[in-house]
């Protein structure tokens, strides 16, 4: 099964500049772990020490926000995941 993960601008330098990566996995968590397997430098940005997503990060599946507590959410073949930071500046 193949899922596309879209990388936010601020993390693209850790994935050799690419914006999208094809990964395998049946849940958001498995997909992110596959991503980190390929690009280990992402690990400390995407996962906290307790293997959860940081509060500042949001996950979208096919454009819909599923929130950062989304590691167990299932995904289907062809789904597009977006990782986006929640920070806003002012």
């Amino acid at each position, binding site marked *: 099964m193949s899922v596309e993960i879209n990388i936010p601008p601020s993390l693209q330098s850790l994935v050799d500049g690419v914006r999208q990566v094809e990964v395998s996995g049946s849940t958001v968590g498995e997909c992110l772990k596959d991503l980190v397997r390929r690009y280990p430098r992402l690990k400390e940005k995407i996962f906290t020490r307790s293997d959860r997503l940081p509060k500042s990060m949001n996950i979208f599946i096919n454009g819909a926000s599923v929130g950062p507590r989304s590691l167990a959410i299932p995904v289907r073949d062809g789904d597009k995941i*977006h990782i986006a930071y929640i*920070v806003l*500046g002012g």
Partner: protein
Amino acid sequence: MAINTGKILRVNLSSGKVSTETVPEKIATDFVGGRGYGVRYLYDELNPGTEPFGEENKLLMLNGPLAGTTAQAVSRWMTCTRSPLTGTFTRSVCGADFGAWLKFAGYEMLILEGKAEKPVYLHLSPDGCKVLDASEIWGKDTKITQEWLVEKHGRNTRTACIGPAGEKLVKYAAVVSDRRTAGRGGTGAVMGSKNLKAVAITASRRLFLADPETYEKLAKEQVRTILANDAFKSHKEWGTTTTQDVTNEIGIYPVRNFRYGQLTDYKKVFGAEYRKMRVGDIGCYSCAARCGKVHTVPSGVYAGAHSEGPEYESIWAFTGSIESDNIEASIAADQLCDDLGLDTISTGNTIGFAYELYEKGLLKKSDTDGLELIYGNPAPMVALVKKIGYREGIGELLGEGTKRVAGKIGKGSDDYAINVKGMELPAYEPRGAKSQGYNYATASIGASHCYGYAAQDIFGAPFPHPTDRFDEGNADIVIFNQDGTAWHECGVACAFSGGWGWMGLFGKLITAARGIDAYSDAQLEKVGERMFNLERAFNVREGLGRNDDLLPLRIRTEPLHTRKAKGEGQTVSHNGEFLDKYYSLRGWTKEGVPTAKKLKELGLDFAVKDMK
């Protein structure tokens, strides 16, 4: 039963006349409140060509229908006027408690007209509105002013005031409330031009709700939703003091007057470094985020500098603009801006511009009162903030803003003036976030990051669809962001709260507050579009058009240098394609004028005759 959630207080400072009015229901449904009321009333009450510092200009102070209630993050307030910096409609949003206190006093809008003969302040209390002598506080900074007012009128008093910068008509002077500012566009200078030092409100909590029971249920649901939301928790922890971590990383942190997109040692300005000097948190009325991070410099040259802030824009204004990584100096400069009543963005940008003029020999030591404006050295920057605030020495000139400074100096200095419509660009480099850049170009008030914040470009947010931040074609995204922000600012809801999962309750809360069923999501989206179009009509009536929707020359022609980040060599082509698409989607002519068809569709028939 429909009720008014707040009246209008009209004060004529020339005659001293004070009167109250009710907002007509049609305006309450079509424009909701806050910024919506601001543009609607200014469009009606200002003649084209009104001088910003003239007696005919009006300064509005507005909250929204939800202010002062138990709902979170909806008690912000704003100033609206014709800007002395840009000549456009302008609005400037502020926090702290003043918006709630204005509501407790019974008002959603304060209309300030005319000009007092000598410095005065207004005091609103259960006894009414009095125009009082301000001679004891004229000339004083905003901290001393506010302390004086609270001592005089009691602890249950909240204030909005100007500092020396507003009194001396610095074109980007702010209105200050507690330690928050209505910063952009020079609304503090308009207040100063009216000889109005402050508005002080002594009031106890009162609610104006048509259906209090439903409102409280909705508010409790909103609070539960927000407190459980991780975006809220993240914002509570950091405020915006980590945004520069991201913008430096992706090369859109403007450095050296928008020549570079990254500081050399950018980790020295990371949020974690500011955290080491954090001494507390402070927030707005009824907002558990308490995102104002308070810092004190413990030692060194700037020991004792203490500020509620700096937040992201102010961090940038006093580091990136002059290519400094001295965060202590940024805290000192931020404090001075709050004390003197200055917009940090325009101040920092103008100082960065002054440094470039010095570098190029267009300003000399004899012009700068002996200060050597050398990039990397923050000491002259801090000195300049003070000079600008008091309009002393070179501050007299710099207080005019980059557009007018360039106009006075000439010799090609306009090429380095980084503003749109006269408003200085904020802390996101347009060449690396082009939807943000085109928002700067087309926003009603000039280059405002908040008017249509491109989270899609900057943070990868994929709604309504993802963007490539180097793509110049996302007119739909710019419009989506601008119109969404507009109706949000009717609340007046905090911009950051939009990501906390509660916006589906926004219209329902207004309905319960007002008792008018006119605030569905679809209706609110229309309100946003209506407001933006009326703001455009205001500006067109003042003679602005396509030629003013233009990013600075540097952004269009000089390649960005990003140092280690992606985006090296980028420019914004501004070749006309974006504006053609944007105007077409907006329903405007090729010159950027709202068509009669669009205005009528939005119920703005009254503006059709003014569009030539």
